[in-house]
């Protein structure tokens, strides 16, 4: 996937760079929104994306019952069936990712804000029971049963501890995020019968070349990615700028304490933010699988780092900045690897970031979620 990049023409690199950049941008939205309201690098967001790709996989193979190959051919679908499958899988990915993000927030972050609730206590108690059960037995069924039995009483204890909770230092959130990220990636790795394998997803969309743009092949999956990403981002911008909940998000991003005093339910605003970020990651997961036809437990890590870079590049906390940063990063990587060789791709991404931050210390568009902040 590396060397052939060098031989491709400028427009070819541009088209695929923009497609990649849009996927970065969609993931970056999750980072940027959570950063805006919580000032937290949500390290586990890359795993929210990974969970979304697994959602697509399950939806395609289990719900729609599509095999990887049909009579040795790709299982192409067309017409209304294809549209149904694509929309269905996107919804599945968004639901799975959104739910994942919500569980993550309430389990790994909310207790650290001193606002832990029963839900988080139950999940944490279950996880404690699960890892304790690993000490005694290796059979997954027994593990789950032990964990289920322990959950009840332990959750009661946890809830009592949560009542005394208060705001944790900021680094604690980061480490909690890292821990959650590790646990989720490993859960993804040990999921299913075979461990740590690359899962191929059924290729339902025939990747026809739609038009030829100065010698660059504009494939149909790139067009879907572009339209989908723009659509989702427009919807998100409208939501944040026009609705009541969106106003809540902007208020918390500007000043959480004042927002709380003025009657905004900060915890539910944060929850909505995670839900939206997760849904965007789910959309990105669908587009990723559409273009690359595969997923793996650690697929999120590098994409996550890059997307976070894109968010910082555009100006973290800034929704339009995420779009711009994603596209700039995607293009820089593609052009850069054509010029210097594919093995320097990641170095180029970070050098672009470094140079931009030296001249514009808060990213290209500056930081803001709705409005400039001090």
């Amino acid at each position, binding site marked *: 996937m590396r060397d052939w990049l060098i031989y491709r023409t400028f427009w070819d690199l541009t088209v695929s760079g923009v497609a990649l950049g849009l996927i970065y941008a969609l993931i970056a939205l999750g980072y940027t929104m959570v950063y805006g309201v919580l000032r937290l690098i949500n390290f586990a967001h890359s795993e929210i994306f990974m969970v979304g790709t697994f959602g697509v996989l399950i939806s395609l193979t289990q719900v729609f019952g599509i095999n990887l190959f049909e009579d040795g051919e790709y299982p192409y679908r067309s017409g209304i069936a294809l549209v149904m499958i694509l929309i269905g899988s996107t919804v599945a990915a968004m639901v799975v990712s959104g739910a994942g993000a919500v569980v993550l927030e309430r389990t790994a972050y909310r207790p650290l804000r001193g606002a832990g609730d029963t839900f988080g206590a139950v999940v944490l108690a279950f996880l404690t029971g699960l890892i304790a059960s690993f000490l005694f037995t290796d059979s997954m069924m027994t593990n789950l049963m032990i964990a289920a039995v322990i959950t009840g009483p332990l959750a009661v204890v946890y809830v009592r501890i949560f009542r005394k909770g208060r705001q944790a230092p900021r680094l604690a959130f980061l480490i909690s995020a890292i821990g959650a990220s590790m*646990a989720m990636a490993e859960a993804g790795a040990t999921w299913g019968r075979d461990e740590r394998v690359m899962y191929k997803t059924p290729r339902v969309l025939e990747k026809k070349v739609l038009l030829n743009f100065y010698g660059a092949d504009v494939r149909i999956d790139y067009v879907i990615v572009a339209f989908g990403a723009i659509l989702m981002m427009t919807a998100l911008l409208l939501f944040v700028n026009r609705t009541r909940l969106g106003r809540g998000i902007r208020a918390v991003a500007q000043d959480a304490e004042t927002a709380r005093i003025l009657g905004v339910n900060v915890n539910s605003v944060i929850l909505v933010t995670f839900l939206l970020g997760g849904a965007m990651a789910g959309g990105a997961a669908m587009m990723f699988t559409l273009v690359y036809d595969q997923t793996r437990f650690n697929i999120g890590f590098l994409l996550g780092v890059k997307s976070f870079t894109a968010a910082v590049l555009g100006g973290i906390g800034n929704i339009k900045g995420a779009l711009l940063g994603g596209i700039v990063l995607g293009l820089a990587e593609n052009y850069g690897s054509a010029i210097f060789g594919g093995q320097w791709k990641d170095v180029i991404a970070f050098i672009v970031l470094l140079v931009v931050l030296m001249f514009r210390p808060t990213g290209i568009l500056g930081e803001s979620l709705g409005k400039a902040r001090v």
Partner: protein
Amino acid sequence: MSLTDAFRRRTAPQLRVSNKFRSLPKSARWSIGAIIIAACYFTPYWPDVPVLGWIVNTPGTSFENVLTDQIMMFILVALGLNVVVGFAGLLDLGYVGFYAVGAYTTAVMTSGQFSWPWIAAMPLSILMAMIAGVVLGTPTLRLRGDYLAIVTLGFGEIIRITANNSDWLGGPRGINKIARPPSFGPFEFSVLNAKPYWYLGFTVILIVIFALTRLENSRVGRAWAAVREDEDAAELMGVNTFKFKLWAFAIGAAIGGLAGALYASKVGFINPDNFQLQLSILFLAAVVLGGTGSMYGVIMGGILVAWIPERFRGFDTRRYFVFGVVLVLVMVFRPQGIIPRRTAAAGISGKEESE
């Protein structure tokens, strides 16, 4: 429960132990310290002690090697990273870069074309890591908080990818035949015997702890604390924040380079895969898990992060799942870390300290 009650309840046990220790006569404190240090020198023999042995032993791998390749390195690295994160309050996600610079300097200088003696390569490794810290710090330390985090993360990756793509650094195959420390007296440094490395490494750790304690209580240490608590206020009070941040970076990098150099000369073979980004994250986890800014805390954090995955190797593929959940649980129930900073109460009370 009132706020003061909550506060007392949280800090009381920690204060009690250290206060008791402090109230002992000087001779008693010195002898307790000496006993602990002596016991630590005998760590390689701990698996042979009845109860203790069952706790510390690592099934499936040699405890000696875990001790020298993992625990020793993590303690040193946690001490170094603590200067950057804990003392000066700068978030560094690319600390593995300095570790790699130290390791690669030793590797290049002692193997193949240069064949320097180990004793000469060691200071050079520290110096190179320090230079790397200054080179990275000069353009980036004007950035704040999380921007610094992502830039340093990029730096760590750049070092690894550069090593991977450069032939004179061995490329993906890495460098082997790295010199071992010279043997003296009964201490013979060889592949089969890891104990001398622990004696050497633990001595280095003691020296680093001593130096850092002096530093923390010096003018530099106070300047770091000022920068950490409120950078703008520090600047207004006349602290040259940039200079002291750069110092923190350079000193942290030097300790990281030292750890890397020791690691390279212990294992005798390194390649870019030894310096993955994930390692940086584990380093940071060690610092925060133990207690950011608290010297004994980060040592404990380093030990735990290095040792838990090895101790529970029986969990096999699930050990990182276990480790991840443990990180979340510790942060939820003890966010200041296992052994918090003594003056922590003033600094970490609210979210406003974040800026």
